[in-house]
């Protein structure tokens, strides 16, 4: 088991290094960093001086090492469009994205488990069929269409919820939160639902399949034979055993939720990292793109590693079975 963890950790470092190389290559070769700093009529001698002061005349491996060291210290250079350090920009917007991603995950897990348990227990009921249809639509409909539909229903037609932004936020140290104000909470509802819908359908299908399987197991028959109430059998014995894979999937999917927040944040003009990234792609702001890539890679790798290690502690049988969907 110790060897397994070491191997996984080495793999994680390998992934991070690979992403680091890509990110460095983007930063260094896609667009000349010097041109982004000097103006059009800067004389060649001065350009050369800027080039040297940035260390761009060093051998490429030296530059790469320096880039990695700086990235590890949280220094990703200066954004071309905002003229501010990328790390400051990302730090400012990280709370918005994390709050959105966490709320979406809670929504997806809560409703996904409820719907999954129900359609697992009463698989032929009309409501269970309705849930199946919803899950097919949830997988087929592009995220942004769901967002537009919600905005049209709840903002334009009914006027209940705001269609963009975070509402009022409260500052707690460096963290800004929308969870403590009414307008902030109202603004969170639609983006969380939009972002969480896909994960909800995923969890629902998983819980349904697991429930169907567990209910056939011998220990459930034994629990029934002992005369336990249906309720105790279903929730104390069956549900508990379906939750291990659910927790795993929720964990593994959290990285995807943060990445998919790019789309949701654009639809709802949510001031998070995803919106920053889309604006960076539109305006070819390479430092932000490279830094975002590194950050997302770090989040993915840390989550994957944590889940892997938790597996070996909780249930060694699961070690190799669950794969993340594309």
């Amino acid at each position, binding site marked *: 088991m110790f060897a397994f963890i070491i191997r996984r950790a080495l793999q994680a470092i390998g*992934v991070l290094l690979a992403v680091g190389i890509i990110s460095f290559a983007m930063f260094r070769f896609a667009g000349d960093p010097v041109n982004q700093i000097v103006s059009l009529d800067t004389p060649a001698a001065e350009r050369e001086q800027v080039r040297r002061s940035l260390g761009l005349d060093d051998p490429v491996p030296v530059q790469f090492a320096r880039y990695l060291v700086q990235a590890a210290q949280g220094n990703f250079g200066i954004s071309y469009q905002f003229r501010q350090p990328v790390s400051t920009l990302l730090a400012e917007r990280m709370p918005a994205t994390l709050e959105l991603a966490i709320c979406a995950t809670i929504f997806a897990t809560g409703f996904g488990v409820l719907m999954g348990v129900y359609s697992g227990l009463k698989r032929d009921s009309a409501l269970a069929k309705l849930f199946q249809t919803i899950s097919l639509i949830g997988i087929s409909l592009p995220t942004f269409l769901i967002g537009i539909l919600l905005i049209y229903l709840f903002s334009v037609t009914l006027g209940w919820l705001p269609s963009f932004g975070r509402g009022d936020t409260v500052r707690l140290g460096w963290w800004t939160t929308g969870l403590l104000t009414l307008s902030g909470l109202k603004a969170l509802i639609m983006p969380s639902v939009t972002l969480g819908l896909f994960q909800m359908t995923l969890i629902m299908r998983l819980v349904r399949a697991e429930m169907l399987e567990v209910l056939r197991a011998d220990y459930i028959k034994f629990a029934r034979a002992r005369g336990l109430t249906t309720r105790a059998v279903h929730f104390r014995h069956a549900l508990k055993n379906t939750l291990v894979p659910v927790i795993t999937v929720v964990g593994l999917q959290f990285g995807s939720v943060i990445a998919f927040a*790019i789309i949701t944040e654009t639809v709802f003009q949510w001031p998070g990292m995803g919106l920053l990234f889309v604006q960076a*792609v539109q305006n070819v702001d390479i430092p932000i793109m490279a830094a975002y890539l590194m950050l*997302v890679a770090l989040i*993915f*790798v840390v989550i994957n590693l944590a889940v892997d290690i938790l597996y070996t502690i909780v249930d060694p049988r699961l070690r190799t079975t669950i794969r*993340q969907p*594309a």
Partner: protein
Amino acid sequence: MAEAIEAVQASQPTTWAGRFLDSDVWASFKRSRLTMVAAFVTLLFMASAVFAGLLSPQDPFDPAQLELMNSRLPPIWDAEGQMPFMLGTDEQGRDIFSAILYGLRISLAVGFLGVAFSATLGISLGLIAGYVGGTTDAIIMRIADVQLTFPAILIALLVDGVVKSVLGGQLDGATTLSVLVFSIGLSFWVQYARTVRGSVMVEKNKDYIAAARLIGLPAPVIMFRHVLPNVLGPVLVIATINLALAIITEATLSFLGTGMPETMPSLGTLIRIGNNYLFSGEWWIVAFPGIALALLVLAINLVGDWLRDALNPKLR
């Protein structure tokens, strides 16, 4: 005995079409009504994309045909609607129905080209990895592993952004389309490569491959002429499901403003444009392209789901 064999052979259809109509796949298709509807819808969308020029009342890309008098007309069933603008018009007097047909053409083109590119890339890399093995295999599969860690949309966005920054400046419609095909292809090849590699590992130990080696055929010929046809079944399923994914990815990129430009809009671009009019009451500008996209993707997904079950006897 010989007569019995001949009788069986005579009852077998000999033409390609005859064999197809006799197959399990066709029988399963005829049984599933939902699949037939989905296949019909898919074909209808493809046909309307191909014949967009004949079906649409105006050419939405020709400014001479647009009149501001006709701008922001509601659909025909509304009291203010006018012929021939069945689904209404947008701000520039562009007919929504025509715009959808032309947009469909671009969405499908990017989808098909993207799938073709990613399938070619994935199949080739999978064949090489599975057949050659060793270090080559390890390198290709490690790259696949790393890429599989990230959602495809993120990779497509990154590739799109980087290619655009390398090319620089404003790109015309055709170049943007190629960039989109390239970025979609690069984000979806992994699944093909893994599937093909897995099948190749099984196939390459069979006798016919040993025979092909013995008569001295070069490795590329064995790979593409002998191994490839035997591993194509699962690839077809992946390609169908990926067509829906590629169309969604293109629409998402265009919606985010990094895809097709407004001068050559795909369905995603139309939705992005229409989204701006949501609050001023012109719901039809965004609704109809949105419905078209949703129907198309749903229909392709249903066909893909059926195909997966039909081609995989284990699931029956």
